[in-house]
């Protein structure tokens, strides 16, 4: 709307300027025309008077002629007719109103017309007609015409012009206010509201202005833009969802790969009780077994089946990926959940596992299943680093002095640290730089996906923490997982 007023004012200013110049030029032209008319009129009167005065002067003498001129004034209300001498030292009543210097041309017998102002500020048109009387000094008839009438006329013209200009401005403003609101203001408001909606991400409402003006074009452009933005957002959301899904699948695959690594140990763990069950069942099936032996065998079968159920449950609970859910989790519980899964593998590889004194409760805000996976990966890596057996030490504590990496979003908080230390071959500095890269592996084909550490790192990063490594080649490695400490019942 402000733009409409600006444009209106600019147009009106132009119109007023043009009109004013036109009026000024018109008035000037009329003024000149009027002056010429008056001058011509005065000359005609003067010519007539000159003939009469010359005749009278020559036939009846000076007094009669000048008396005639005095009397002539009575017939003209506006024009004052006088006799003037064109010489120095003439009596005051016969001196010209203007200095003699302005009347030089009278000496060449030319009529002189000029404008003069009285002492009171009134303008006059003076016309001098030379009169030559033989034997006399040069004289002239002076006709004085007041310009007041012309001034009044010009004033009136100016007043009318001013009224027209004012009417033009007022009606222009009124019209533009009303029409500007209808043609510009209202559609602009709609377009602005639409732009604001699009800005806030609301692509549902469409705005279509009718007509074929620039605003209608702008509205269809905005419509096209809205459609493209909505499409782009949908595509981006779909891509994001696909990415999440792929990541989730990859993590699940890695869980299954971890399970695969654990399975050899698990097979041993399951093979023995299965052997006992099968054997005992066979014993029972044979005829002639004493009743007490049958009962004993049945009880053993039951115990062994329970033992297998326990192992299966642990495996399944790890393999099954439930809804990712972060909540305050005690790290001790996570450690105790992975121990039974690891035990057979630890035994098989003759690795001693030791959990150092840990606080009775160390809460972190995390997805327990994901944390289990990270811990399993780190411990399995430790086991693989010690093919001839050794010792893995696990400890967790509230870290007091920590150097937080720059990549961590919220560095100002308390940290829980989960540390896995092995006595393996250590990690070369070169490998340390790449060990968290996806598909980087130092293991043989088929022994590792190269995703374990990369996924562990991703999971911990998603939890707002990081993984640090200390390793001296030949002297073992120590992986430290840092996670924000949580309070019970709330987020970290």
């Amino acid at each position, binding site marked *: 709307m402000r733009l409409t007023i600006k444009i209106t004012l600019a147009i009106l200013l132009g119109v007023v300027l043009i009109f004013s110049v036109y009026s000024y030029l018109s008035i000037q032209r009329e003024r000149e025309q009027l002056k010429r008319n008056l001058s011509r009129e005065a000359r005609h009167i003067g010519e007539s008077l000159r003939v009469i005065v010359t005749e009278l002067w020559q036939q009846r003498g000076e007094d009669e002629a000048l008396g005639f001129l005095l009397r002539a004034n009575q017939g003209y209300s506006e024009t004052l007719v006088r006799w003037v001498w064109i010489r120095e030292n003439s009596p005051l009543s016969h001196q010209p109103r203007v200095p003699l210097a302005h009347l030089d041309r009278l000496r060449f017998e030319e009529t002189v017309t000029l404008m003069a102002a009285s002492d009171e500020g009134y303008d006059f048109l003076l016309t001098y007609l030379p009169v030559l009387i033989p034997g006399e000094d040069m004289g002239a008839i002076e006709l004085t015409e007041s310009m007041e009438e012309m001034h009044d006329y010009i004033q009136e013209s100016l007043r009318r012009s001013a009224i027209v200009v004012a009417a033009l401005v007022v009606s222009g403003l009124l019209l533009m206010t009303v029409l500007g609101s209808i043609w510009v203001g209202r559609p602009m408001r709609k377009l602005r509201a639409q732009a604001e909606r699009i800005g806030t991400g609301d692509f549902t409402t469409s705005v279509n202005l009718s007509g074929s003006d620039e605003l209608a074009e702008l509205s269809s452009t905005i419509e096209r833009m809205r459609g493209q933005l909505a499409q782009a957002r949908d595509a981006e959301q779909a891509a994001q969802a696909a990415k999440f899904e792929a990541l989730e699948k990859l993590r699940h695959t890695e869980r299954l790969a971890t399970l695969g690594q654990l399975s*050899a140990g698990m*097979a*041993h*763990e*399951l*093979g*023995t*009780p*299965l*052997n*006992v069950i*099968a*054997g*005992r069942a*066979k*014993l029972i099936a044979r005829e002639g077994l004493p009743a007490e032996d049958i009962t004993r065998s049945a009880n*053993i079968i039951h*115990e*062994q089946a329970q033992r297998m159920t326990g192992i299966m449950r642990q495996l399944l609970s790890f393999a099954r990926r439930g809804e990712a859910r972060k909540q305050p989790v005690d790290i001790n519980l996570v450690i105790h959940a992975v121990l039974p899964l690891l035990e057979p593998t630890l*035994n*098989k590889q003759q690795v001693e596992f030791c959990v150092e004194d840990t606080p009775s409760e160390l809460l972190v805000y995390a997805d327990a299943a994901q944390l289990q996976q990270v811990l399993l990966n780190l411990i399995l890596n430790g086991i693989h680093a010690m093919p001839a057996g050794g010792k893995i030490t696990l400890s967790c504590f509230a870290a007091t002095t920590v150097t937080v990496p720059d990549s961590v979003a919220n560095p100002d908080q308390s940290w829980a640290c989960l540390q896995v230390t092995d006595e393996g071959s250590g990690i070369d500095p070169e490998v340390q730089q790449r060990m968290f890269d996806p598909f980087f592996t130092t293991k043989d084909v088929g022994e590792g996906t190269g995703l374990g550490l990369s996924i562990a790192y991703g999971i911990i990063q998603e939890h707002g923490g990081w993984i640090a490594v200390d390793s001296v080649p030949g002297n073992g490695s120590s992986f430290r997982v840092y996670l924000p400490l949580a309070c019970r019942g709330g987020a970290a």
Partner: protein
Amino acid sequence: MEAVCLDLTPRVLLAEDDKELRELLALVLENASYEVCQCSNGEQLLARLTEQRSFNLVISDIRMPGLDGLEVLARRSGKMQEIPFICMTAFGDERIHRRARDLGAAAIIDKPFDLDEMMELVAHVCLRSERN
């Protein structure tokens, strides 16, 4: 156990860390008229083998706490090596099979196994050993 060997009663030295499996195998072997001497780990097995050489057969689990079956197999010396040695394993790993064979195991049986299958194997190994 006495160091007397009766031809009709073959003596079996059985090493298995899982108590239930060990007792089951012992029961079945005894029912089949074998005399069974039980050990729960590799150290005991090696000690029994060293002090008495009158066993007709050794049946040992490979994975046991402390000294494992393969190590016992490797540490056998002199006459001890003549006693047929059956290995039991739940790892089913070809490398372990190969290693056990290389160390002189008479047979390797994967857990879980059928008891009849085991008894057939025991009878077969004993017979082969007697022939030699």
